[in-house]
């Protein structure tokens, strides 16, 4: 694992749990179809109660990392061939997704993946599938989801396939909430949404984190927004973590500014430069 750029600051409360993380991904390698090596030793820690961002461009391996954690890789013929994913100290990368949902880890997939022909409310109810709770509890949880997403309540009887992109994203997050998860793996919630909606959705993620105590591991290409809401960030490139640190520091880091926030004078640099940066960083560390 690459070294944090600096020590975690003491005022960032959720970072205190880094020594005893809820979720610990340690040096995993993932291969698709027995031949395509995608993750080449990724390590990251997700402390309880925090929002951890997993950043990186298209194809960096963010989705693959999340799926390795949620055990959704098997159904895509992907396999964790090295390393270990542990949740609360238990090895989980060989279990099945339903087990993980019962343990409290649920993934909201990239591209929302609502059940198109089910109504919004039925979509939410599918999130309740693994739970053994009473009907009264189910309705109470449904109301809670509606209190975070009033828009879903208005559209509860509509087929999810006919709702807008933002509503579908809310539906997918709400559906995950119905499983009463401890940790949500949220894959690219901002994808294809207008900036205003992105703000709204990240705002709700923050609220869920603060008020319901849900831990988030958030994969994003939108570095700017993600680093504003997250506590800690990892930057992934071609299947490797190349940098990590508290979000506030990543935001101020000149390299991140240059390569991911597009704030350099010369504009965004090419991949070549990123590579030379990486070489430079390896020399330094």
């Amino acid at each position, binding site marked *: 694992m690459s070294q944090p750029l600096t020590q975690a600051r003491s005022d960032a409360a959720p970072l205190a749990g880094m020594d005893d993380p809820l979720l610990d991904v340690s040096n995993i390698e993932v291969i698709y179809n027995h031949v395509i090596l995608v993750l080449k030793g990724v390590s990251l820690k997700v402390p309880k109660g925090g929002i951890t961002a997993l950043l990186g461009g298209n194809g960096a391996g963010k989705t693959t990392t999340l799926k390795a954690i949620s055990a959704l890789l098997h*159904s895509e013929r992907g396999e964790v061939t090295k390393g270990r994913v542990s949740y609360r100290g238990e090895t989980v990368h060989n279990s099945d997704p*339903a087990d993980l949902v019962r343990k409290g880890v*649920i993934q909201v997939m990239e591209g929302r*993946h*609502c059940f198109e022909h089910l109504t919004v409310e*039925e979509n939410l109810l*599918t*999130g309740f*599938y693994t739970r053994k709770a009473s009907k009264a509890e189910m309705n109470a949880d449904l109301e809670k989801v509606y209190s975070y997403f009033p828009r879903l309540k208005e559209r509860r009887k509509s087929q999810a396939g006919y709702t807008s*992109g933002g509503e579908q994203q809310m539906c997918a997050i709400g559906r995950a909430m119905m499983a009463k998860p401890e940790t949500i793996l949220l894959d690219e919630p901002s994808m294809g949404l207008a900036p205003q909606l992105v703000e709204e959705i990240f705002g709700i993620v923050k609220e869920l984190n603060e008020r319901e105590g849900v831990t988030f591991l958030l994969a994003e290409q939108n570095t700017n927004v993600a680093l504003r809401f997250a506590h800690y960030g990892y930057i992934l490139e071609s299947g490797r973590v190349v940098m990590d640190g508290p979000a506030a520091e990543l935001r101020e880091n000149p390299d991140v500014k240059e390569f991911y926030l597009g704030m350099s004078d010369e504009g965004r640099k090419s991949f070549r430069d990123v590579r030379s940066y990486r070489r430079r960083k390896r020399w330094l560390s």
Partner: protein
Amino acid sequence: MPDQVLFAMEVTLNGLMAGVLYSLVALGFVLIFKASGIFNYAQGVMALFAAATLVGIMDGQVPFSHLINAIFGTDLHHFGWHVPALLAIVLTVGVMIVLAWLVQKLVMRHLVNQEPIILFMATIGLAYFLEGLSDLMWGSSIKTLDVGLPQGINDTIDRVTFDAFGYGFFIDNLDIVAAIIAALLVIALMAFNQYTKEGRALRAVADDHQAALSVGISLNFIWVLVWSLAGFVALVAGMMWGAKSGVQFSLSLIALKALPVLMLGGFTSIPGAIVGGLIIGVGEKLFEFLIGPMVGGATENWFAYVLALLFLVFRPQGLFGEKIIERV
């Protein structure tokens, strides 16, 4: 009322009765296709297998008796008891559930994520396997199935219609019972699909496997469930057809009649399977009655397929095929 109209009414009624059975067979296909994208070629053979198993259990036949006798030199054929119809039906349902579980465990589970054509081929293999298994377990002779369903012309309908129109309708009791049972089964399946947690999970899987997995729905369980339901539907269909015309190989060909029904109704729609079955049932009987004499009869053999062909050309998604929602 003129005779022609009365005849046509009687023919329509008979067509409806036959149509309900077509719907039932088609429903077996739709259930599996919707949830797993598998076109189950073995559906007809499953009906045959279910009916043969039902007869075998009722008659107290020793399963695999030929095999056992050949290996051990014994002369076993019957246990010497008779099992009441209702109990035998329950046992057969059990056999169909075990079969569903085995199909999932031994075949389909290993083919997850394969092309639809590969899954289809697997079901062709399954069809031949089941056909052989059915012969091996229960013998290949033609069996009569008598689960105590009423047979013969319904006198009440005959009398009532005679009093009303001066012409008594000939409707077979078995058809009436079959139609009622099939209708109840269809209603029960739709209610299950719409209002239970498992039904909702089933529709979720049909919409998006990956997303269903992500919320913790077990695909294995859902697939065993749909194969069991399809097995149950096959049993009911096999029972009706078996009671009507004996349990024999030709029973497995009822699946062929389901194809035009599916093309009409759409492969993914339960209401489509029902309406499609009724249209084909009524259509082929009325066509035979009205047009048949002009073209030398025997139109029932091809009417359904020609109708299906027309649908393929002009409305390939069928009457009720689910619209593909295209919106991001």
